[in-house]
């Protein structure tokens, strides 16, 4: 198989930090090449360099033997590099076709050739078996899953030699991951090289032919997938054995009911009955659009229940929720969790200040408690890794000592090492007498952490499973098949 991508001796420094040094990477045509490593290992930087967003300080990139010019994403695009970013990169106010061809609009006689755009888009959608929307629909009107499809169409529409996928499944639910797998394999059959970046080791074993591990900005290994085990990968990434991936479940039986809902509902949820008891972790599973985020936001008071009983008193607003001793660690740290330009201190104290309450203990003690290392209260949070940012969000809630803590995708975009740390924290809080509700799209995490599992479907609770349920059982309830 011909070599599509050859990166040699790539090095890059940002003010005050060396992010990459001497990284070599080779990807062949028709190969799915996984790229893994902890956050801060340099995956994203490496990808952004390939994308032409960053310019490397040293090193060269060749695409099919031709050296790649740097400076602007356009150069990479022209060279046949196509990227699917973790955050969706679509314009809500433009049509699907306009998004697919953004920056590469076909031109006839100096004018944009709409017909071609829409025809090609329609064909590509069809080739993916997507018929729920058309080229002329506004992206604003699409569900997140549908938007992901648009992203993939966008990538396919370029005659890409190499497709880079950064955490493509981050926003997807299990069954959608299947769809993605199918797409990736399609790409492989077309002889396209795929560089697949993910935190989810399982996906890597499902998809990849080879895997390259980055650690602290350097390449530690490139191995064929069949010559390596999960344990190896984890060791290579974090440089230590993580034998027990999840902390032990609750030892003591759950305590009193701290939160109970009877027949809770609003425009997205219906007939929600649940109880959260002190000391237990309740997992919430469900497909994209099943109403998981809606559930936590309803319990928290951000998108309140309009029907049903709830004890303590049904919150009508976020402040109600907080006053009732409920906290929410949101799914999207950047847009909902943190004020990125503010210091760790200001973020950690935000909730306490909003309630005009004093934080329990000093900020340092707080950061100690969430094991933020190094604990620099004056640092702006945007400079922290995903894991550390999540710890700050957690600290924010600990200041007001909530009795119920709701987690929405607590380890989204967090690297393996930090994941473990956060899992331990969550368990600690539960053992400390808190009631925890945890939404996760990662079944292993969900099953590994939860004392019991609620499965949502179409805004209702489709079923309840005990600790240690199998992934199959969960999926069955979730998909309703």
């Amino acid at each position, binding site marked *: 198989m011909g070599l599509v991508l050859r990166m040699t001796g790539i090095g890059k420094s940002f003010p005050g930090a060396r992010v990459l040094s001497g990284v070599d990477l080779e990807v062949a045509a028709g190969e799915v090449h996984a790229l893994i490593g902890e956050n801060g290992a340099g995956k994203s930087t490496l990808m952004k360099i390939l*994308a032409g*967003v960053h310019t490397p300080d040293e090193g060269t990139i060749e695409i099919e033997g031709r050296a790649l010019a740097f400076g*602007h*994403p*356009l150069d990479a*695009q022209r060279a046949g590099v196509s*990227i699917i*970013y973790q955050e969706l*990169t*679509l*314009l*809500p*106010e*433009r*049509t699907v076709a*306009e998004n697919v061809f*953004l*920056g*590469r*609009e076909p*031109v006839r006689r*100096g*004018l*944009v050739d*709409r017909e071609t755009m829409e025809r090609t888009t329609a064909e590509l959608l069809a080739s993916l078996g997507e*018929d*729920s*929307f*058309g080229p*002329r*629909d*506004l992206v*604003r*009107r*699409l*569900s997140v*899953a*549908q938007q992901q499809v648009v992203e993939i169409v*966008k990538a396919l529409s370029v005659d890409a030699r190499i497709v880079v996928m950064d955490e493509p499944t981050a926003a997807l639910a299990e*069954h*959608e991951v299947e769809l993605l797998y199918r797409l990736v394999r399609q790409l492989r059959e077309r002889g396209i090289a795929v560089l697949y970046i993910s935190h989810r080791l399982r996906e890597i074993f499902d998809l990849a032919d080879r895997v390259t591990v980055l650690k602290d900005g350097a390449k530690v290994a490139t191995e064929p997938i069949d010559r390596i085990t999960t344990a190896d990968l984890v060791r290579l990434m974090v440089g230590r054995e993580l034998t027990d991936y999840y902390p032990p479940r609750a030892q003591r039986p759950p305590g009193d009911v701290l939160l109970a809902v009877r027949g809770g509902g609003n425009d997205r949820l219906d007939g929600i009955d649940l109880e959260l008891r002190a000391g237990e972790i309740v997992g919430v599973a469900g*497909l*994209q*659009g*099943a109403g998981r985020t809606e559930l936590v936001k309803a319990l928290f008071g951000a998108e309140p229940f309009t029907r049903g009983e709830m004890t303590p008193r049904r919150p009508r607003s976020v402040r109600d929720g907080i006053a009732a001793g409920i906290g929410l660690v949101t799914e999207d740290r950047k847009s909902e969790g943190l004020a990125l330009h503010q210091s760790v201190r200001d973020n950690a104290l935000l909730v306490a200040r909003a309630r005009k309450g004093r934080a329990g203990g000093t900020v340092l003690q707080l950061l100690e408690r969430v094991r933020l290392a190094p604990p620099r209260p004056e640092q702006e949070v945007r400079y922290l890794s995903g894991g550390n940012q999540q710890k700050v969000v957690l600290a924010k809630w600990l200041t007001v000592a909530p009795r119920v803590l709701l987690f929405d995708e607590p380890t989204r975009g967090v690297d393996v090492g930090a994941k473990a740390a956060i899992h331990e924290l969550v368990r600690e809080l539960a053992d400390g007498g808190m009631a925890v509700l945890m939404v996760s799209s990662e079944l292993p995490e969900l099953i590994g952490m939860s004392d019991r599992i609620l499965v949502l*479907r*179409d805004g209702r609770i489709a079923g309840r499973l005990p600790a240690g349920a199998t992934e199959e059982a969960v999926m069955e309830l*979730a*998909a*309703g098949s």
Partner: protein
Amino acid sequence: MTQELHTPLPRTSAPRGLRDLGADSPARPVYLALVALTVLAWILFLTDGGQFFSQANTVGILQRSAALGIVAVGQTLVILAGSLDLSVAFLVSLVSLVAAETMAGYGVLPAVGAVLAVSALVGLVNGLVITRLKVHAFIATLGISLIIKGVLDQRYDGPAGSVPESFQHLGYDRVGPVPVSALLWAAIAFAAWFLLRRTTLGYRIYAVGGDPEVARLSGVRTDRVVVAAHVLCALCAGMAGLLLAARLGAGAPTVGSDGGYDLESIAAVVLGGTALAGGRGGVAGTAGGVLLLAVLDSVFNQLEINSFAKDVVRGLVFVAALAIYARRRLAR
């Protein structure tokens, strides 16, 4: 779940030309309002013993709105691109003088050339200060307008130059009830509409305004787009300056600032449903916004409302209109 994930959407099947006024169009409310106000005006005029649709009045309305209309077209482009231009007012003054003086000295065509050159240059500077020096558009264009003001104060102490009669026709002629100035406005508006709908630049203006980062990652050279938008905006201001020179028979250092073309053009644009943040809206709406203000003015004229009351009403209209748009966006 399939219906959960795959909710079929209503096809937007309106013919392309009409998409600007389609159900989804931000421009629609302003036209509804315009129709409503026109009817109201018509009744008011009748009761007040006037004739709204009289030639004199329609010509008046169009004449009064042409200059602002042209500036607003340009303003639409920069706002769509996520920027804005506070320098247009003084630019209009400057250009009117450049036009009148060049015409006095060298004739009409050189003057038009000079005007386009000067305004393009100013637009270029605006764009470069914003993109290269990375100065917020608000500050950048505010600064540039101060600089232009300085030049005006320094160089001119009153109306200057003179416009040959042949060119004054631009400001005074009519084709039937339609003033040529209005035709110029229409032409420029159409050009801009076409630019936005059918050229790559237009597409990228929407992209950059909608989300600069997304545009960049998709390979759009965002800086160039912003600069281009500013150049076009300045060119529109230039055309407005030409038109005013033709109206006034000379250039005037205060015609732009007295006209309040900076803030009024922005107001007209948002009145037309274009999002101040960029990426959403269009020229059609802006034209509607300008006409709305013009009809409002003619009502004020008919009822001889004093200028202070006018300001109060205008202020209320802006806020009310935007509140309504906010409601619509929320409703979705």
